[in-house]
């Protein structure tokens, strides 16, 4: 059985804790004057991005390069790749070139599982549909651990995830990893932006929780949802669910303010997070490299990561 990294649930608690420890190690590597290590020399990482995502793609690319892997990238909109060639054809063609791991991003849930059926290579899920984004979850959990100076036991930690939960792979995966580590998660959204059925606690009143919780995790609100009748309009959404000055002032001083990026300023973020000491947004970007290095190293690594 090939080992993959496709969802938090599939990985399970033991592996997640190991990956968090490995992420810490990789973060230390990243702080060295020369952050490049030979661990994946001779390995080939193929970034298969069927959905625009410059940030995640660059993060994976840099993570692979820091481990000395060779990388290749196919970035296409899924609509254009299907002209005559199926997804399966694409995967089998690239596989024939000799790929050790496919990093897959697709707008549809489940594609990383399908890809794994068509190649003996390992598969890393870089975001599938509304389903999962496990490397984001890993970097989020690591960022909390780092900022709060705690280990892999998050019990007692209270986290509010705010915004479009229904259509968010980040919300699903990050909620899963936080619950796995013992944190208490509440989803803050109108009913139209919640999944049809879920056992996570919910509220539609951000003001009730914003001053209470240890972590406020703001999700990106996509503008196309506004036109789809899911919320009346952007103004009403921002009024109820954005982090504005009043809510920012209500944050506890030791709270963390997180966002997966890219931010929609003026929609879910009415303040400049750079001015808030609670913000972890740039830490998340930095830690993303380390988390992805940890994942690639776990799947492919045999060599050392010494200087």
């Amino acid at each position, binding site marked *: 059985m090939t080992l993959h990294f496709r969802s938090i649930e599939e990985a399970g608690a033991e592996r997640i804790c190991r990956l968090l420890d490995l992420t810490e190690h990789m973060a230390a590597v990243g702080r060295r004057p020369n952050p490049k290590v030979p661990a994946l020399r001779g390995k080939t990482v193929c970034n298969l991005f069927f959905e625009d995502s410059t940030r995640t793609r660059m993060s994976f690319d840099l993570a692979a390069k820091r481990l000395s892997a060779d990388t290749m990238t196919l970035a296409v909109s*899924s609509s254009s790749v*299907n002209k005559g060639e*199926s*997804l*399966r054809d694409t995967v089998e063609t690239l596989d024939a070139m000799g790929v050790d791991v496919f990093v897959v991003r*697709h*707008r*549809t*849930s*489940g*594609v990383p*599982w*399908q890809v794994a059926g*068509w190649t003996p290579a390992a598969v890393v899920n870089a975001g*599938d*549909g*509304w*389903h*999962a984004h496990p490397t984001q979850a890993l970097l989020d959990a690591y960022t909390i651990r780092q900022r709060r100076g705690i280990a892999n036991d998050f019990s007692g930690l209270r986290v509010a995830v705010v915004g479009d939960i229904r259509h968010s*792979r980040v919300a*699903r995966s990050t909620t899963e990893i936080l619950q796995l580590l013992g944190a208490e998660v509440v989803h803050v959204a109108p009913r139209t932006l919640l*999944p*049809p*059925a*879920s*056992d996570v606690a919910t509220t539609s009143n951000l003001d009730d929780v914003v001053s209470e919780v240890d972590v406020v995790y703001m999700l990106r609100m996509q503008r196309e949802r506004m036109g789809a009748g899911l919320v009346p309009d952007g103004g009403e959404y921002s009024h109820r669910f954005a982090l504005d000055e009043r809510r920012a002032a209500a944050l506890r001083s030791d709270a963390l303010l997180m966002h997966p990026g890219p931010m929609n300023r003026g929609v879910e973020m009415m303040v400049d997070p750079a001015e808030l000491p609670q913000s972890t947004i740039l830490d998340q970007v930095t830690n993303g490299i380390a988390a992805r290095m940890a994942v690639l190293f776990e799947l492919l690594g045999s060599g050392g990561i010494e200087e």
Partner: protein
Amino acid sequence: MMQHHNMVLVGATVIDETGERTADVRVREGTIAEIGSDLSVGDDEHIDVSGCIIAPGFVDLHTHLREPGMPEAETIETGSRAAALGGYTAVVAMPNTDPTQDCVEVVEFVSKRGREVGLCDVRPSGSITIGRAGTQLTPFAELAAVGVHMFTDDGLGVQDEGLMRRALEYAGELGVVLAQHCEVASLTEGAVMHEGECCSHLGLPGWPALAEELMVHRDIELSRLTGSPVHLLHLSTARSVEMVRAAKTEGLAVTAEATPHHISLNDERLASFDTRFKVNPPLRTMADIEGVKAGLIDGTIDAIATDHAPHPPVAKDRPLDEAPPGMLGLETALGVARSHLDCSWQHLLGAMSWRPAKIAGIDDRHGRPIVVGEPANLAVIDPDSQWEVDPSALASRSRNTPFIGVGLTARIRHTVFEGRIVVRGGKATA
């Protein structure tokens, strides 16, 4: 056409609408010539079927043969062979072909091709609206005159209540039946699977049970208003079954079918992200499975229908939102139904043969009692056969069975169509 076989089927239990008895059955010149014990064989072929059940051939109310238009998925020939292997002697061919079965020319092409193939009775349905576009009625009377009895826009529900009312009124006086694919489209936009806990977890757009139930309710009420019969296709939810039960108690002209996959597979199958489990209506919850099974067992649901929907690998090897819905069903229906329904053989066979034959309006030749003078359309079943579904061994041109590697009980040993052996020893003869 192949020659008739003259044969004596020896030693089986005969089960039909009238009951169950042990008897030998002689078939000559396409009809049942003699029934009794210890029949002399004479020049006829002696076929030992001891331990087997002889039943009237099955009738599938819901088969997608994909011809004309999609030969890479299925043809009338490959679909007829799959039907024969499943014990079917008649199938109602769904109209969502390309071009649509909405005019005499296309319908006659399908009938004629079915006769040329000669492996089962292919009965084309007609669409309710031209091109299944939901706006203009097809010429029901013209199509009825060339043998169409069932009309449906299957794959799509007729969304417009006013149009459906007029269609029922117009169809009623012609003695044909309208069959509805119950799905309120505005509730299922982009849907990939049942809306519930599993879809929430998997981040896949959901198809709520309500989208079916609203249209079931609407069409029951339209049948009450117009007095015309309505047949409800592939019911998948427990509440749909309850509504049909209540309608039947009131004596309304409502019939219904359910598929083998909706009594055997639930929505959690999608957790594998395997597109073979994408089907419309979607696989539902265990509670829905129990409700549909109860409906089949108490007769609320008249018929088991396959919704045999072939798709080639190139279509199914796509992301879940792009992959077309549908599963193969003809060759596995008996085994799945027998393995999942706790009822008598006679009741099960009624749901596969004589009850659907009446709904399809073909009970003059199919689902008949097994008595002298009746047409020899027969399924010979090995009730104890244990077998495993091997997709590469299926006769269908496609491979999209959801039952790969699943162990089933009961299998077709022989199928006799119009007096000819079209399946012998579990293998198609042509």
